[in-house]
């Protein structure tokens, strides 16, 4: 397994070197540009082949990519079948369709073909659930230094100062670009953007669209992406593993193996540049605000591809997620993800009470409800443990009714569905896993230690958030880094070439058709049980308040659970090269869980989100990020090896 070391920060050295490889043999591989995968049956096709296999070539406007030597280039409308086995060549492959992925895709589409791979519907992303807003210095009374200071203080001084400066400085321009792309944010009576306030910010600087900012941004970006002829969106396509090779001491990324979860086919995507924008891993915990797609796929794939991972111990628990137990008539089925009650409710004057209607925050922090999230989450957690209760109450009913309904229409509507009127009653809330501050270590241009692999968004650890994320900085980070990764990606794309039989270099993953439906059902059921068990281990032992013994117990139990699960799989006939959605998600969850536990064990202090009773204080000498280097290939589990590197005995 990986060794975790706390190391000094340094800028990531990105070495420019083009892929050395044989030139493409002329004529054999045709590049597919601008494919649109249509769901409906086109009228002019007479063949009865599977709709998903039918692609339509569109007229390609231009190409800047360097495919050397002759190519069969289809410039007219041609219908062709996507044969199993033929790889798809794109200049850029983007994994994830949240704000980071889409923003990047829109920009690089001006320079080459782009494939956006998303494992469910494109709008299913963490971005869509972001409520509060995007923070940026847009008020003349505000300053970049103030935003920087708020960020660094919230991050418990673990932030990388250069990164913070870059993000705070470039933020306002990114927001203006979003507005130009069609995102409509709330404006105040004076006609300017309405800037809200949130916990941890010293100024009003949150740009928002009512209480569903993420949704509005996602809508605007998706609209632009759908209308862009150079971007092909592959929905219900799950990324299995990155395709990598060794070029001396460097690892190079050439694309990814993708599973079409609708047709259960494995596709190979070869690209010069890959952007990971796959989001976080909320589902390693039982209660999370993240949608079901957040299973840490990108972090796990990057780790297996020898990328450096950083700061995984800093898991942000949002202090106020709607507690279903406290609702008058709760939802009839278990929710897949908790409903978020945004920070802005506290920013607008919401007060926290325990079930005895005592206001407890002033006892924990002088900023009371406006303290940063980790303080609030720990306080609520403490109250819940002390009083042995399931939730606390957030009351905003003392504000005027019209104001509540106009600022938080979504929350009001959601609560009303279950019989709760937030204009007259307090809201039951409980902490839930919300955001991963850590992830794949990225430099200032979103570059990683793997050549050709860039990261942006929650999956990246850029050093902006440090030990705790300031509210509304996540959308900002995604926007800024997605934009910053564009130029280096284009430069890298222009200087690299496709190798000869590149696509055949790696072993092909297979689908478990041969196992039969009964066995597959058993495997899926068992995997679902194992997932729940992993989640409860994480919540009990790697939660808001930690200790060395609990963490070591977690490490041991997770290790045992993983071996047990893999043994079960292989017993049922699962081959190491087989892939399936549930199994791949499970191995990714295991990978992320282990990364979180090792990182937590490595930090011998309490800082920001990571609080451990064995080292309850801040240690100046430990004010360095936690780095996990890729592990050695020996003595590893199925989950920690890329599918195309499995040794078949």
């Amino acid at each position: 397994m990986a060794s975790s070391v706390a190391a000094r920060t340094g800028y990531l050295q990105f070495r420019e070197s083009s892929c050395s490889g044989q030139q493409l043999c002329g004529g054999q591989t045709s590049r597919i540009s601008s494919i649109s995968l249509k769901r409906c049956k086109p009228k002019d096709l007479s063949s009865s082949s599977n709709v998903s296999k039918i692609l339509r070539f569109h007229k390609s406007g231009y190409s800047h990519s360097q495919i050397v030597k002759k190519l069969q280039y289809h410039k007219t409308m041609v219908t062709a079948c996507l044969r199993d086995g033929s790889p798809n060549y794109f200049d850029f492959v983007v994994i994830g369709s949240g704000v980071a992925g889409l923003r990047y895709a829109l920009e690089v589409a001006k320079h080459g073909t782009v494939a956006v791979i998303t494992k469910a519907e494109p709008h299913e992303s963490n971005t869509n659930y972001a409520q509060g807003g995007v923070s940026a210095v847009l008020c003349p009374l505000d300053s970049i230094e103030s935003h920087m200071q708020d960020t660094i203080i919230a991050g418990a001084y673990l932030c990388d100062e250069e990164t913070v400066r870059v993000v705070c400085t470039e933020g306002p321009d990114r927001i203006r670009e979003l507005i130009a792309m069609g995102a409509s944010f709330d404006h105040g009576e004076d006609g300017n953007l309405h800037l809200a306030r949130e916990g941890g910010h010293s100024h009003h600087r949150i740009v928002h669209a009512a209480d569903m900012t993420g949704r509005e941004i996602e809508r605007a970006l998706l609209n632009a992406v759908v209308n862009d002829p150079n971007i092909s969106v592959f929905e219900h396509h799950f990324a299995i593993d990155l395709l990598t090779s060794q070029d001396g001491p460097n690892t190079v990324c050439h694309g990814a193996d993708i599973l079409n979860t609708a047709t259960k086919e494995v596709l190979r995507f070869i690209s010069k540049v890959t952007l990971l924008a796959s989001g976080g891993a909320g589902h390693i915990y039982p209660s999370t605000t993240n949608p079901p797609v957040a299973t840490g796929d990108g972090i796990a794939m990057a780790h297996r591809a020898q990328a450096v991972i950083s700061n995984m111990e800093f898991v942000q628990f949002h202090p106020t997620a709607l507690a279903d137990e406290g609702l008058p008539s709760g939802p009839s089925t278990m929710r897949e993800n908790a409903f978020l009650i945004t920070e802005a409710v506290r920013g607008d004057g919401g007060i926290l009470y325990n079930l005895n209607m005592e206001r407890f925050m002033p006892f924990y922090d002088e900023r009371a409800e406006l303290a940063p999230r980790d303080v609030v989450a720990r306080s609520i957690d403490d109250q819940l443990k002390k009083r042995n209760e399931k939730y606390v109450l957030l009351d905003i009913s003392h504000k005027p009714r019209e104001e509540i309904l106009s600022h938080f229409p979504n929350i009001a509507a959601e609560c009303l569905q279950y019989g709760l009127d937030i204009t007259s009653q307090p809201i039951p809330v409980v902490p839930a896993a919300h955001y991963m501050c850590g992830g794949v270590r990225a430099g200032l241009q979103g570059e990683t230690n793997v050549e050709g692999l860039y990261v942006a968004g929650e999956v990246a650890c850029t050093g902006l958030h440090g030990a705790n994320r300031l509210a509304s900085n996540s959308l900002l980070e995604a926007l800024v880094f997605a934009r910053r990764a564009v130029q280096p990606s284009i430069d890298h794309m222009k200087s690299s070439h496709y190798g000869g039989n590149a696509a055949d270099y790696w072993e092909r993953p297979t689908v478990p058709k041969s196992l039969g439906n009964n066995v597959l059902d058993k495997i899926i059921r068992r995997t679902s049980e194992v997932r729940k068990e992993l989640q409860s281990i994480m919540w009990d032992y790697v939660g808001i308040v930690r200790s060395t013994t609990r963490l070591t117990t977690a490490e041991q139990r997770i290790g045992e659970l993983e071996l047990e699960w893999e043994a079960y799989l292989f017993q049922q006939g699962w081959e190491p090269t087989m892939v399936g959605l549930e199994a791949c998600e499970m191995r990714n969850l295991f990978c992320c869980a282990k990364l979180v536990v090792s990182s937590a064990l490595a930090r011998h202090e309490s800082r920001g989100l990571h609080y451990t009773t064995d080292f309850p204080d801040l240690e100046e000498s430990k004010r360095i990020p936690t780095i996990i280097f890729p592990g050695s290939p020996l003595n590893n589990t199925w989950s920690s090896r890329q599918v195309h590197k499995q040794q078949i005995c």
Partner: protein
Amino acid sequence: MGASSRPKLSGLQKQVLALYREFLRAARAKSTEDRKQIELIVSEQFRRNLTQVDRKNFLYIEHLLRRGKHQLDQLKNPATIGLSSLNVKVSDVKHS
């Protein structure tokens, strides 16, 4: 010059209007009588949804938008000559 009395449209509202305009533009490419028929059906559908769908029901509106886009793509196909819709009325039949 007084302030505009019309409230500012949200991004979602603009997207719906844009889709409506696209439908009308696509209809223009068809023959005159088909065009009238298409315009009739499209405006009737949009008007119906305007009154029946709650403006806060974002999930459903987004679903309608996606469905509308697929339908628009089909309409744009030169082989498609028109739209028609069925009104299915369910009668109350009492089973004795």
